[in-house]
């Protein structure tokens, strides 16, 4: 395709040809447009399985004002978010120092680190049955589950961040009177590791959303996962889709918020978008 040959590596977007420039600008909309068309036709053919997108949006709007099982849409969002935030807070409280210590001290790595590495391969969701047996299906159980899920990426990233600090910075520190262990750690290693630690927090946030969803789908009376579950039980696909959209939007918002916070705390980071 002639248009494709004019594009190099996706970075050179200077189009000399008017038509190709138009195509380039319209492309995103064309893509979404095609998908919407497919969706609408599928939903016309089988409304039970493929909820009409407009119906989904209408339902979402409706849920803003009319409670479902006691909570409006925003109520459910708030409940899910509350669980995530509490768990994230504790995960950061425990995980960041733990990861830092593990990255800094070989002894810690050999002791606590070994235990951690044994627990790590167990997927978060595999803890659910055990957690239910131990803590039932109350709030505490769910928050603990999310905590476990969020803890892993935070510890791993904090640990990696510390380990991967450039030796150059350590040399600089030693040459400029920051040679004591505590000074090196606080003034050089920690700031250098901050961006990686933030990446861990970002991972933990998306992991938390996933866990809260699973936990709510399995055993809850409120929250977005519960909403989806209700839809599933009642074969109300529109409700299910609404839940998914709500989660997607919530996740995106959380992600934006985390990025904003990171940019305030780490202004020196020319943030490249990679995961």
């Amino acid at each position, binding site marked *: 395709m002639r248009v494709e040959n004019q594009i190099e590596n996706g970075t050179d977007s200077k189009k000399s040809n008017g038509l190709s420039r138009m195509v380039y600008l319209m492309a995103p909309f064309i893509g979404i447009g095609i998908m919407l068309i497919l969706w609408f036709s599928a939903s016309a053919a089988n409304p039970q399985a493929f909820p009409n997108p407009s119906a989904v949006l209408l339902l979402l709007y409706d849920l803003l004002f009319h409670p479902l099982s006691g909570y409006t849409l925003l109520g459910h969002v708030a409940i899910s978010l509350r669980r995530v935030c509490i768990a994230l807070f504790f995960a950061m409280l425990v995980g960041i120092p733990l990861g830092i210590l593990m990255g800094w001290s070989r002894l810690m790595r050999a002791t606590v680190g070994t235990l951690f590495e044994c627990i790590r391969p167990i997927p978060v969701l595999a803890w659910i049955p055990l957690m239910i047996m131990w803590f039932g299906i109350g709030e505490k159980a769910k928050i603990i589950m999310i905590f476990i899920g969020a803890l892993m990426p935070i510890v791993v990233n904090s640990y990696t961040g510390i380990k991967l600090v450039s030796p*150059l*910075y350590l*040399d*600089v520190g*030693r*040459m*400029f*009177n*920051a*040679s004591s262990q505590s*000074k090196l750690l606080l*003034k*050089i290693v920690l*700031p*250098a590791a*901050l961006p990686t630690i933030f990446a861990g927090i970002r991972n933990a946030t998306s992991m938390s959303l996933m866990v809260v969803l699973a936990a709510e789908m399995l055993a809850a009376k409120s929250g977005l996962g519960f909403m989806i579950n209700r839809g599933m039980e009642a074969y109300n696909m529109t409700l299910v889709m609404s839940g998914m959209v709500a989660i997607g939007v919530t996740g995106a918002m959380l992600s934006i918020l985390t990025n904003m916070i990171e940019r305030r705390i*780490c*202004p*020196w*980071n*020319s943030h490249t978008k990679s995961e």
Partner: protein
Amino acid sequence: MEQPHKVRVKLEHISKSFKNNSKSPNHEVIRDVSFKVYDNEFLVLLGPGRCGKSVLLNIMAGLLTADWGSVSLDGEQIKGPNPQIGMVFQKTGLLPWLTVMENTEFGPKMRGIGKTERQKLAQHFLNLVGLDGYEKNYPYQLSGGMKQRVGIARAYSNEPKLLIMDEPFGALDAQTRYNMQNEILDIAKKEKRTIIFVTNNIEEALLLGDRIILFTSCPAQIKNIYEINLPKPRDSMQKEFLRLRREISDNTDLAL
């Protein structure tokens, strides 16, 4: 040039090898190097790239220990990093999370010097390197040359007795490099210190050095010591300059 021939730094029989792994034999990097450094002189260590010079510098700075021999500054042996020695790194090594001012005042701050005093100190050197106005910028906003100037200001701000510069202009483009060479001459004239400067560029060595110690390639040994008595700033087209350059060039080992 008047030189009180007071010895500031003495290296005696420095040798250093690196073990690669248990299979290959030790990689000898420095073999029996001894020399003296005089008060306020600009000493250049010249040699082919990638062999021993940086290691020697790191030993002098206290970042590495020699297998054999000793280094002493004003009679005291150097066993570890020492605030009396300032270092300018080839890769600059500015801490990215600190502003220019915070980077420059880092040394004094770590020593516990009060805010007004250390900021005055840092400001003085930032002005000297021509970076006044950039105090609140972050390193990522600066060009290579500017970053290295901060590196120089930072080293000076720590009020060291000895300044070590490890190929500080090696990563800069030719134009910036010429500018920085003139600048460092200027700075060295205004703020007299004992300076040890490493480079692999003969012309740079001749432009800057009061004395040049020429090293062999791996393992590094002293090949020759040249005293350059030309007045500074030097003209690289001058007859004597070119003669010295030819002489040193003929004597230099080629790097592998």
